[in-house]
């Protein structure tokens, strides 16, 4: 089987379970393709040799009852992996080797998957284009010099480019859904509290969630089933009954009420996005669902709120990087000088900018005007969703206000970069699940995504809607392998 890397996760699992393929066959195929794909710069750390050994070991005594039997998988370099360097895309963690494993990755290995390597991302997950990574830009497999989105840019590029059958990313303001949309793949941000944050390098603790990034909705449901678990090691992990998402997946969404929020029709939104949204509305109707016009009146306040809350939490979380116990250290004349130089040389420009915003909004005299104000507006944004969900079962919006842009196009203007997340940020602020599915192409042939937002803990419902729409849309990603010589 020469086209192993073209197979979906579901197909690979089936072929390994029926012994048509061995874990070694599959692992070798993804390693070979990854080796030929260096130009994408999707990996920060490769662990190929050890992956192959693990695959061989798996094949000697295969446990085919597992959900991910011998499946190779690369993961975002924001997840701590025991004894494997974990950088968060930063110089300051350039040489950090965790002594423990994140719960989410542990869940994955416990189901039989094998680590291929660690994937590139924006530094500390702060970015929308993967251009803030200390380890350089990531190329979008869709076209040369196109950003893959961010912060899970390496993850998106690796799935779309078929360097890994599936992966996980993290999403604080859109970091799974926006890159999924830019690369023509499926990305799910679960409900806050669904997947443990233990062992994930923290950015903004009240917003961060891990989630799957996949070639299709079924694969996405399967991985969500594996990674979502109650974890006492995360104080905000929530103990609720989790579904067998992939087994319970159905395309029957008859009678579901889908909200269409008028505030997502923003000024200057390209016609292509509006047209895509209208097509999406037609698709859900074709599936037997009903659409309802709704209002989320505080939508335009979500981004300003996010740019207070997220940097505030980041400035506190990133205070630990002081050059003392781990990571990079610069030479200083005394302790304070060492701290200041370490952080100045160790953090990139975007991370420094956000730490400073966060420090400012939390500083004496400004706390009430900014941070407290933002927490209040956050409440209003959550209330908007609570009100909407009295009338509808889910909400349909575009995933992003544009398709992927060129590398370097938005790096000079932080606010224009931030606007990328205009449709995804409200979902994080309200702690809700959201999924982006590929739904069409723009005039350049670049993919465009639609987002389905659910009620808290209602992942099954949005996965079902996505599954039903996926069948109607019948999206084909245009990957030309331009980077393979």
């Amino acid at each position, binding site marked *: 089987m020469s086209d192993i890397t073209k197979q979906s996760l579901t197909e690979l699992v089936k072929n390994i379970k029926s012994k048509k393929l061995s874990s070694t066959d599959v692992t070798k195929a993804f390693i070979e393709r990854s080796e030929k794909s260096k130009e994408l710069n999707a990996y920060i750390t490769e662990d190929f040799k050890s992956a192959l050994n693990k695959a061989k070991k798996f094949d000697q005594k295969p446990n085919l009852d597992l959900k991910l039997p011998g499946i190779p998988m690369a993961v975002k370099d924001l997840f701590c992996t025991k004894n494997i360097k974990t950088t968060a895309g930063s110089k300051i963690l350039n040489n950090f080797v965790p002594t423990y494993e994140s719960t989410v990755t542990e869940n994955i290995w416990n189901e039989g998957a094998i680590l291929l390597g660690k994937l590139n991302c924006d530094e500390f997950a702060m970015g929308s284009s993967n251009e803030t990574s200390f380890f350089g830009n990531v190329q979008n497999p869709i076209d040369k010099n196109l950003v893959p989105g961010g912060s899970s840019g390496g993850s998106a590029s690796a799935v779309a480019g078929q360097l890994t059958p599936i992966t996980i990313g993290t999403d604080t303001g859109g970091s799974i859904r926006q890159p999924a949309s830019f690369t023509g793949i499926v990305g799910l941000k679960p409900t806050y509290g669904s997947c443990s944050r233990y062992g994930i390098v923290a950015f903004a603790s009240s917003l961060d969630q891990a989630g799957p990034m996949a070639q299709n909705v079924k694969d996405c449901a399967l991985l969500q089933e594996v990674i979502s678990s109650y974890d006492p090691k995360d104080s905000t992990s929530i103990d609720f009954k989790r579904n067998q998402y992939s087994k319970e997946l159905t395309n029957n969404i008859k009678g579901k009420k889908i909200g269409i929020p008028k505030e997502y029709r923003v000024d200057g939104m390209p016609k292509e996005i509006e047209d895509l949204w209208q097509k999406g509305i037609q698709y859900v109707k074709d599936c037997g669902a009903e659409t309802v016009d709704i209002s989320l009146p505080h939508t335009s306040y979500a981004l300003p709120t996010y740019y207070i809350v997220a940097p505030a939490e980041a400035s506190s979380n990133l205070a630990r990087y002081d050059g003392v116990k781990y990571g990079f250290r610069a030479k200083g004349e005394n302790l304070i000088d060492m701290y200041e130089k370490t952080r*100045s040389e160790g953090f990139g420009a975007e991370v420094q900018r956000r730490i400073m915003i966060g420090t400012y909004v939390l500083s004496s005299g400004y706390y009430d005007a900014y941070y407290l104000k933002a927490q209040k507006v956050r*409440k209003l944004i959550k209330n908007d969703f609570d009100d909407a969900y009295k009338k509808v079962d889910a909400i349909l919006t575009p995933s992003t206000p544009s398709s992927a842009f060129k590398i370097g196009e938005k790096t000079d203007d932080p606010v224009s970069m*931030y606007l990328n997340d205009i449709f995804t940020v409200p979902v994080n602020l309200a702690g809700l699940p959201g999924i982006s599915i590929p739904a069409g192409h723009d005039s350049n042939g670049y993919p465009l995504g639609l987002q389905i937002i659910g009620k808290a803990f209602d992942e099954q419902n949005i996965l079902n809607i996505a599954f039903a729409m996926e069948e109607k849309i019948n999206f084909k990603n245009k990957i030309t392998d331009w980077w393979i010589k």
Partner: protein
Amino acid sequence: MSIDLKTIKHISKLSRISVDEKRAQKLAGDLNSIFDFIEKLNELKTDNVKPLTSVAVTTLRLRPDEVKSKNIREQIVKNSPQDNEDYFVVPKVIE
């Protein structure tokens, strides 16, 4: 409002990130454009709104205070940027 160089120096001190003049100028420009954008929140009256501190509607759980990891001191110290067997080393603090 406008964030001047003096404020940038103050935030930089609080953040423990040293910035030179050139960086400070650039940061002042960036932060001003970001705060212009944030000011939009002042359009909203929020006097009677209760702040949302967490979307997770759970109370924090208690657990027994037990040591769970064993013998990882060596590994932990190994991540220290300055080589030493038993301690984390920092520049001299007391003269």
